[in-house]
């Protein structure tokens, strides 16, 4: 389950917009909007290219004061949510 090497990427055909440092993503097929807070927005940016949870954490650690182990748990949990909502896919 806890696989920092799995590669994720955004689904094609999604639209999103930035609002004051936060992001709203539209999944047209599901007719649903998904809001991402500040860190979520940064992760969403990193998901523009194929990326692993480990790489995301490395990116975040450079910008935020986070504990690497807790970060990986949080990021994997967040990616699972994005996966379940059809916003990203695992390659």
């Amino acid at each position, binding site marked *: 389950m806890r696989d920092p090497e799995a590669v994720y990427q955004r689904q094609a055909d999604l*639209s999103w917009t*930035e*609002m*004051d440092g*936060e992001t*709203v993503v539209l999944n047209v097929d599901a007719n649903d909007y998904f*809001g991402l807070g500040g860190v979520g927005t940064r992760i969403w940016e990193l998901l523009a290219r194929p990326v692993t949870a480990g790489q995301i954490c490395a990116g975040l650690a450079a910008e935020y004061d986070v504990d690497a182990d807790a970060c990986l748990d949080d990021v994997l949990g967040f990616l699972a949510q994005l996966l379940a909502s059809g916003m990203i896919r695992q390659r």
Partner: protein
Amino acid sequence: MSGETCYRLFGLIVKSELSLPEALIAPAGVAAHVFVRRDEVDPGGITGARRRGPFVWAAAGVLWFSVPDVARFLVRDGREIIVDARPGVDEDRVRAFLLGSAMGALLAQRGTMVLHGNAIVDDDGCLACVGPSGAGKSTLAAEFMRRGHQVLSDDLVPLDEECRVLPGIPRLKLLPDAVARLQVAAEELRPIRPGLTKFDYPLGAAFATQAIPLRVVYVLARGGRDPGITITTLRGMECLVPLRANTYRVGFVDALGLLPDHLDRCGRLARQAQVKVVSLPSSLPTPAEVVDALLADAAGDN
């Protein structure tokens, strides 16, 4: 059949076979962007399109809708509205839907975001008041006007790419109590639709004819728990839900497959203007009290 006339509304030159007495006449010799024609519209909808509701069909760039006993409308490519009015129906009724729903669909096809409410000119910008039907939006517009503010648009508030509000039709749609406050006899005004007790109040010099940047969107909400009027600024993604809820005919935007474009416009709007919720207490304040609160708030943001 009447001849064609060119009108200027929502930032467009509209050449129409239907007379639009409430709209501004366009200057002579200007090329039209939009054509309104009378013709037959297939009662069965559009072949190859999707049925989006009992009275709505849509395909890319085309929206068909029917108002039973009034007219069928076909809105195409942001350029053309075909009106098929039922025989003998009152022109005022047809025009109410032409200038409302049909123009709303056409503006959506042109990529123009349209809010449902009104826009009032204030210092260095304009303020939009949006909210559900019956929230008293037009009554507020009348109160702003009484205090010397110009009105840009009532009912449809279209925004251009730079989030400026485009001037609409120089009228307010008012209920009789708002008419009384303006001290004009209701008999002098033109009823909007037979059976509907709203009146067209011509704005005259109180109509702003230039596009003006939108500074604040005030979302009116009734039933607040506080005894007074409270105004809360929304941040980030909180802006999306009220902007979507107060988008004019958002169902048409969805049916036309234009929600991605609409989301982009919402983002742009949230970045350039403030979105604020105006919570009105259940003991409804007077229009003067609401306008006082909005102007004080808007002045504080300058």
